[in-house]
């Protein structure tokens, strides 16, 4: 692209410092963004990416440093300031109103009015044109937002953002719940906006995508600036090692040991015709002791739904589940836990962490729940347990009394893993355990899964990253459009085979 060093940056941040009690979130960080570029902000969890973005969007105020927009120093005191200055953000989770119409979502708070009344026709027409012209999206804007897929909602959120102000657009993990086709659609829109001169700050954990769309890369590590690079001049392996801070081939080095055959193994769980109307068609499936079963399929193929039925997070309306050959079934999460099943939900924020509680309390929660009211774990023992897991899983900051909401996503995920490992499960269900977390933590979690299985734990592993599913699984169950379509193991396990099964036809 036409980014030259002679050009003036549209956004320049210099010498930014930001401290939180006990944490130096940003230390002397500088960052610049040019018009007409896609700039990837990279770093592990806790590197300071989120903090930097929150500074830009006015959520946090800085302790020291300057922010200049078009060579003018600005003070961003609130999200409103940011918006007025021309900095818009689209977050990982689309935060629009699902039951308002698309047009209302785009124009909420600034509806076209005449004599104090909203001019609906004009609003709908504007919304339609905006989406068509800038997003290449032709949809009915009078339908409620939840009518559309997450990908389309994402594009609508972007349309809203750029229609408010269009100098700097921040995309925070926009692709984490999109499938390949949707990602391409998003990238097409990004390229177009870029060519119109918009400066785009792009945060993602997917390395492929960084190289696919970005012009420049800025790397942060532990709150410090590591450097700014042209994407074309920074080999992938260098990027990873700069992010992690040491030469690491972690992901390649994972033991790709011979996956043991299942013959002679006893099943831990057998599900027959397990299903629920509207979410997953009846499925037969078994999970052996000490086996890692991967669930592969696109988003919405029924992966999560199946896992939730097994844990009884949702109630099945057909089928039967045998656990270690015994009938009786599982009718509530409580019963599932009593049967030594653990379930790490994909929705960490809503279904995982308890924000207001400490790391210690979050870790012991499931164990304490299964012990009942009166058999309490002494505080001393709780701290011992928490310390043990903080050490084993490398949770940062290593303080059991820290509130979990102040931890980074990867560390929250580790706390949740600790919560479940503490219950000594025989079957561990992991739904997207590595989503939105950095490579280092990802590798740690994958390694942990492999070693747990070696010790005899069964694991049901769900991930949108096919590569990851292939790496850890002994057997893969492929789902498509709410049906189980294929099961494969041993020799059959290859990226192309699974892809074919997922795609079907």
């Amino acid at each position: 692209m036409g980014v030259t060093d002679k050009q003036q940056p549209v956004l320049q941040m210099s010498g930014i410092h930001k401290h939180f009690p006990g944490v130096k979130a940003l230390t002397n960080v500088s960052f610049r963004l040019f018009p007409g570029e896609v700039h990837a902000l990279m770093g592990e969890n806790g590197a300071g990416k989120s903090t930097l973005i929150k500074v830009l969007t006015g959520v946090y105020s800085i302790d020291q440093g300057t922010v200049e927009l078009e060579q003018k120093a600005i003070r961003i005191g609130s999200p409103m300031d940011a918006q007025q200055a021309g900095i818009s953000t689209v977050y990982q989770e689309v935060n629009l109103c699902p039951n308002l119409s698309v047009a209302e979502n785009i124009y909420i708070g600034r509806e076209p009015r005449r004599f104090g009344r909203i001019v609906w026709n004009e609003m709908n027409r504007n919304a339609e044109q905006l989406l068509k012209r800038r997003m290449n999206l032709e949809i009915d804007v009078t339908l409620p937002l939840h009518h559309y897929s997450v990908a389309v909602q994402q594009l609508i959120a972007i349309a809203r953002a750029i229609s408010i102000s269009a100098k700097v657009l921040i995309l925070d993990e926009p692709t984490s719940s999109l499938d390949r086709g949707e990602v391409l659609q998003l990238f097409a829109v990004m390229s177009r906006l870029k060519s119109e001169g918009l400066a785009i700050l792009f945060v993602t954990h997917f390395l492929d995508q960084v190289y696919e769309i970005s012009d420049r890369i800025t790397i942060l590590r532990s709150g410090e600036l590591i450097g700014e690079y042209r994407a074309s001049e920074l080999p992938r392996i260098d990027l990873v090692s700069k992010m992690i801070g040491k030469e690491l081939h972690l992901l390649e080095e994972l033991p790709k040991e011979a996956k043991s055959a299942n013959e002679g193994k006893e099943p831990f769980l057998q599900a027959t015709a397990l299903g629920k109307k509207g979410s997953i068609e009846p499925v037969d499936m078994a999970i052996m002791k000490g086996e890692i079963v991967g669930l592969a399929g696109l988003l919405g193929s029924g992966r999560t739904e199946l896992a939730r039925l097994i844990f009884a997070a949702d109630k099945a309306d057909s089928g039967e589940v045998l656990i270690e050959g015994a009938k009786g079934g599982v009718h509530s999460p409580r019963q599932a836990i009593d049967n030594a099943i653990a379930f790490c939900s994909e929705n960490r924020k809503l279904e995982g962490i308890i924000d207001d509680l400490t790391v210690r309390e979050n870790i012991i929660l499931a164990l304490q729940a299964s012990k009942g009211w009166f058999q309490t774990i002494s505080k001393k023992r709780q701290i011992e347990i928490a310390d043990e897991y903080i050490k084993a899983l490398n949770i940062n900051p290593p303080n059991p009394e820290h509130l979990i909401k102040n931890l980074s996503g990867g560390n929250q995920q580790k706390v949740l893993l600790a919560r479940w490992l503490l219950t000594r499960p025989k079957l561990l269900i992991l739904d997207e355990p590595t989503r939105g977390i950095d490579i280092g933590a990802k590798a740690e979690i994958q390694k942990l899964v492999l070693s747990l299985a070696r010790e005899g734990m069964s694991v049901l592993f769900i991930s949108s990253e096919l590569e990851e599913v292939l790496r850890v699984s002994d057997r893969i169950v492929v789902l498509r459009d709410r049906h189980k379509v294929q099961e494969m193991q041993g020799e059959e396990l290859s990226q192309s085979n699974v892809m074919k099964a997922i795609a079907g036809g």
Partner: protein
Amino acid sequence: MVKHHLFWPVAVLAALLLFNFIYSPDFFSIIVRNGNLYGSLIDILNFGSPLIIVALGMTLVIALGGIDLSVGSVVAIAGAISCLLISKGTDQSAWSLVLMAIGVSIAVAIVLGLWNGVLVSIFGMQPIIATLILMVAGRGVAQLIADGQIITVSSKTYNYLGAGSLAMLPFSIFIVAAMFILVSLLTRRTALGLYIESIGCKPTASRLAGIRSRTVMLAVYMFCGLCAGIAGLILSSNVSSADGNNAGLWYELDAILAVVIGGTSLNGGRFSVTGTLIGALIIQTLTTTIYMTGVPPEITLVVKAFVVLVVCLVQSESFRKAIVARWKTRHYPAEREVKQHV
């Protein structure tokens, strides 16, 4: 120290007491009369005891993310039942009769709590609506029980509950102490406190972590009913009568206020039993102060509302920050602003 969650409640209480001391220096004096202690402080504890007990139950409900508007009505019903039963007896002071009356009314109060709990946890009603039903209907029930009359009893035994004294102190203070210890033990020595905070903060995540949230909710609403019942007994025994119309009127609001002033968020989650105790004392002290300073009765509620507003603002962190920011910018030299950005 300012960071401690009890700092502001304690500060407010201290400020109120200080005001009283300046206004009438003998506020703190306690004298011995007929072998009992008398004084304003004792009065505050004595008259505040029903409110404290109701607020203790309310704390747990609010920590669950719920609310219980029916406590005032339950107070009236419990008082009406026990007074009715005692008034029917031939020997109104008989221990067996009084104990039976107390037992029945407390059982009814617990059942009423269970009713709220069932509506909220099993039928999934919004707590504010579910308990509004009993708040409105309960007043009617209390009047039906009393047949629209004020029932008076003359039972020395029953009167002891709300007006007797033990070790020179009003007996109700011991009931408060017992309930406070009970709640503290229940929430901090068993896992109940953790469950409540967890459910109040994230119900879905708690269910997936294996907490039986229904059982916990039922138990908490029942406990709140129990607290309201005990408060009803103390109130009616103190005046030896039950007034279905006015007993416990607006108690729910004072109790909610006490909980919030004590530092427990209406959003649920973290709670502080000690905070609630202080919050209830603040409200009772405030009420006493208003009466003592001779505010005309027609504006006492306005004065109370104003003081409560100030108390809430002082406790609000964002409000304090805004004030401090204002103060600082007033003394902020314009030159510094310019230098920073150049």
